């Protein structure tokens, strides 16, 4: 005798009640799964994108904004700094710094940010080319894998960038210079997948609007592309948005560098890991709130199963008593109710996984680039196993009371009722 089949038939018979229980269960489990994985993956992606950067140097403003804008490309710049102000950090022989990567920000193409930077950026994020070559001249770009996928740009294609970071595209002003795609980067799983890289001098070129020669202090003409820090130092009056700094080693001097910069220079230095910890302390409250909402939905789902079973039991007690009277053992009746609850949990879990992967897809397609937390892999996560277990526990707990009622049922009295 197949009790599982009978449980399935019972669920189908009371299909509306079953559907409500399954929907509530799947919504609760799907949201819990998404919030659990989303919060841990966001933190992981944020930390992966640190790329070993110890300090971000930029114009004074909000340190968190400086970090979010220049490391995660998720906020607007705090302002620009002149190369003259930053020249000490651009010195390749700086005793404390192993990397100093300049960034120029402020333009975009179809919502993807242009970053004027040197080739050192590729080393910092360990980026590799999937095709073509890295830019050698001004107005040449290397694009991230997601940029290529979503815009359809290919090697040799040309495009015009817009002023602004793509946040309000309707207000953006298009530049007249044509950029040419010379390289496409391999997918790295970092924020670089969503960036368009060019030389800092390309940035100056599209913004100078023919005023180049008014800056008579520069030692080099702008038709020579700037591809390294030493070339950057030849243009002390030009501006960049920030510098990403990595220490040679962490010692007292390097640890004091941030405080020293903030106290003694017109620049601002921010520690990404310190700012991230502050951010996640604050986000943690939000995630806890979201998890609480999901748990509440799951609790409602458990109550729905319990109410559904209890109400159904008033109608079904006769058939359960009948099963007992014709030889059905108590364990068979208990198994029947348990199977019904477990089926609700299993179907609810599979529907929840559709909800979960749907949210993951939405997050990857629409939210990750806007919020700067990177893509999340469409794979099986260990947390999903925990959520399945949670669903089963909730379902089983919700039928404990109906099971006790059935076991204490007076068969003869029940069969004489009505």
């Amino acid at each position: 005798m197949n009790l599982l089949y009978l449980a399935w038939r019972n669920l189908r018979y009371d299909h509306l009640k079953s559907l409500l229980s399954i929907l509530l269960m799947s919504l609760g489990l799907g949201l819990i799964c998404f919030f659990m994985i989303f919060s841990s993956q966001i933190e992981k992606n944020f930390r992966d994108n640190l790329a070993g950067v110890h300090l971000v140097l930029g114009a004074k403003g909000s340190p968190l904004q400086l970090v979010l804008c220049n490391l995660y490309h998720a906020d607007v710049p705090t302002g620009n700094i002149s190369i003259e102000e930053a020249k000490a950090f651009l010195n390749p022989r700086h005793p404390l710094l192993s990397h100093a990567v300049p960034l120029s920000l402020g333009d975009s193409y179809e919502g993807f940010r242009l970053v004027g930077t040197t080739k050192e950026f590729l080393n910092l994020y360990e980026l590799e080319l999937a095709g073509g070559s890295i830019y050698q001249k001004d107005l040449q770009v290397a694009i991230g894998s997601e940029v290529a996928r979503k815009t359809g740009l290919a090697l040799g294609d040309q495009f015009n960038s817009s002023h602004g970071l793509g946040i309000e595209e309707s207000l953006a002003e298009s530049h007249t210079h044509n950029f040419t795609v010379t390289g496409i980067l391999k997918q790295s799983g970092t924020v670089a997948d969503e960036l368009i890289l060019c030389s800092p001098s390309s940035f100056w070129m599209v913004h100078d609007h023919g005023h180049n020669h008014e800056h008579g202090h520069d030692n080099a003409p702008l038709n020579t592309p700037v591809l390294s820090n030493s070339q950057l130092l030849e243009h002390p009056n030009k501006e960049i948005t920030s510098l990403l700094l990595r220490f040679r080693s962490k010692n007292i001097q390097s640890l004091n560098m941030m405080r020293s910069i903030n106290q003694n220079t017109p620049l601002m230095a921010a520690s990404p890991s310190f700012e991230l910890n502050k951010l996640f302390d604050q986000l943690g409250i939000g995630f806890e709130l979201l998890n609480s909402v999901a748990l509440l939905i799951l609790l409602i789902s458990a109550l729905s199963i319990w109410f559904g079973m209890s109400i159904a039991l008033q109608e079904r007690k006769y058939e359960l008593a009948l099963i007992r009277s014709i030889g059905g053992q108590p364990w068979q009746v208990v198994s029947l109710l348990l199977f019904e609850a477990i089926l609700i949990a299993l179907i609810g879990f599979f529907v929840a996984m559709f909800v979960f992967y749907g949210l993951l897809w939405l997050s990857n397609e629409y939210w990750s680039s806007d919020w700067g937390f990177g893509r999340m892999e469409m794979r099986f996560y260990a947390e999903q196993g925990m959520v399945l277990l949670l669903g089963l526990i909730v379902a089983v707990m919700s039928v404990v009371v109906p099971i006790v009622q059935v076991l204490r049922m007076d068969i003869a009295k029940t069969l004489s009722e009505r």
Partner: protein
Amino acid sequence: MIEVRRLAHQYSNQDRSIEYPDFHCGSGEELLILGPSGSGKSTLLHILGGFLKPSRGEVKMSARSLQEMNTKERNRFRQDFIGIVFQKHHFIRSLKVFENLKYAAAFSKSNRTDDQLLELLEFLGLEDLKKQAVNTLSEGQKQRLSVARALVHKPAILLADEPTSSLDDQNCRLVAELLIRSKEEYGATLVVVSHDHRLMPYFANKIELGA
């Protein structure tokens, strides 16, 4: 086959107790126990079915005393030897007519094959309804299905509680004849408790309970 002596039952929530006359019903015989509402007919059937332990007296079925059995033994005895047609039609709502019989056979550990169960449906005139949902059956059809279910494990004793109370004259006659035929076909001892005097012509042995 069934022997009842000095039987009385005291309800746990009431002061009154019901005393029953002694009676005997031999193997393969039929017995009609008539009585008005409140005369303790259903209680007697529940005692005979092993659902209730009487307060006093002795019930012997197939030479075994029900009083000497514990609950588990009584359940086992019922499962092996007794088929019951209940006053109300209780079926597994989600299953079709034939599936109800199959699951009843499985729960009662009957070794009847599907073909034998189909023969049973045919015997009771339900073969055309085998794939029908039970809640679409008429009262008469439900009563016949109840009889079929009581017979799936070939019981030695067939008990029926008010089997005709909600039926019209035609269906009352059909069900009464069916019970007698079933008893003869399966060689069972038949005990029917009812207040329905229309059943009297069908039974050679009768007992009347007082109010």
